[in-house]
C-alpha cells in the first residue's frame, strides 16, 4: 500500500482560481429570487436590504473559503481530495477503483475555460463534503467564443487516469 507518506513529492493542487468567479456568481443567481423578495419587502418599508447584502456577502465568502480549503492530488496509485476549514477531511481512492469520470460545463464554465470534474466511486457521495468533485479545474484559456481561442495547452486533468481517451 502506498499512502501519502510514500509519495511526498506529488504536490497538492488547488482548484482553478477562475472558479472564484463562477461559484459566487452561481450562488448569487441561486439567491436571486430571495434577494428580489427582500427588495420587495424593503420597498414596503423596513431594513430588509441589509439582510440581502449580508446573504450575498456570505455567499462570496463561502466560495472563497471553499476554494482556499479544497486541494487535490493524483499520485501513481491514488487520487486524493482534501477539504474542510474547521474539520478537515482527506478522501482517497485507488486509481483502479475509479468507476466513472464525469466532466460537465455550462455556458459560464465554457466562457472561463473551466470544467467540473467528478470522480465516481462506489461510495454514495451526495454530500458535497464527501464527494470527489472538483469544481472547477482549468481546461483551456479564458476566452469566448471557444473557437476563437486556438488550441489551448493540454490541461493536467485530461490525463487524470490512464484510460481517459486523450486527443
Amino acid at each position: 500500500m502506498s499512502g501519502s507518506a510514500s509519495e511526498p513529492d506529488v504536490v497538492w493542487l488547488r482548484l482553478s482560481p477562475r472558479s472564484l468567479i463562477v461559484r459566487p456568481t452561481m450562488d448569487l443567481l441561486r439567491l436571486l429570487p430571495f434577494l428580489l423578495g427582500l427588495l420587495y419587502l424593503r420597498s414596503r418599508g423596513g431594513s430588509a436590504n441589509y439582510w440581502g447584502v449580508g446573504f450575498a456577502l456570505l455567499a462570496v465568502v463561502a466560495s472563497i473559503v471553499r476554494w482556499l480549503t479544497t486541494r487535490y492530488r493524483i499520485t501513481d496509485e491514488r487520487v486524493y481530495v482534501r477539504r474542510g476549514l474547521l474539520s478537515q477531511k482527506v478522501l482517497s481512492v485507488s486509481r483502479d477503483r475509479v468507476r466513472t469520470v464525469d466532466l460537465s460545463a455550462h455556458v459560464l464554465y465554457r466562457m472561463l475555460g473551466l470544467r467540473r470534474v467528478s470522480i465516481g466511486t462506489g461510495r454514495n457521495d451526495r454530500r458535497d463534503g464527501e464527494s470527489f468533485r472538483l469544481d472547477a479545474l482549468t481546461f483551456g484559456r479564458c476566452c469566448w467564443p471557444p473557437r476563437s481561442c486556438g488550441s489551448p495547452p493540454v490541461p493536467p486533468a485530461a490525463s487524470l487516469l490512464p484510460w481517459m481517451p486523450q486527443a
Partner: protein
Amino acid sequence: MTPDGTADRLLPGLRTPSNQVSRRAVTYWTARAALNGLVVVAVEVVVVIAGGLAPGWWIAVALSAIIGAVHAAIMPHWRYRVHRWEVTDQALYTRSGWFSVQWRIAPISRIQTIDSHRSLGERIFGLANVTASTASAAGPVHIRGLDLSTADRLLDELAIATGQIPGDAT
C-alpha cells in the same frame, strides 16, 4: 494511448468521441419537445379560459408558445451536434447535452451490467438506448438515440470487451 482522435474543441486534452447518434434522434427530440410545448400551452389555455383571466394573459400564452416552438426547432439540432459516443479498448466515452455539456468516461474493466431500453417514443422512431452500469454512485452511463442495429452491435461489442478483461470488475 495513441493520439488517434480529433481533439474536442469543447474539452481540450480529450478527443471528440468518434460516433454520432442516429439522425432519426433529431426527429424524435423535435417531436418530444413539440409535444411537451403543446401540453404546456394547452394547460395555460385551459387556465386562462376556466379562470376567466384578463385578455392580457393571452400575451403570456403566446409568448410561451413561441418559446416552445423555438426550443423544438433549435434544441434537437444543437443536441445532435453535441451527442457523441465511443468505445475504446479501455473506456466507454460519451458526450451529451446541448446548452450545458456533459462528458462521461467509464473504464471497460469496471462495467457491471449492459442493457438496452426502448421507450414507446423511441420505438415509434426506431431508436434504442444503451446503458452501462459501473456501480458508480454517479449513476450508469447512457447512450441515447442510437438506431437499432448500432445499439445491437454496441451491446455485443461491450459484452465482448468486458469479457476479455480478467478479474471481477470490483
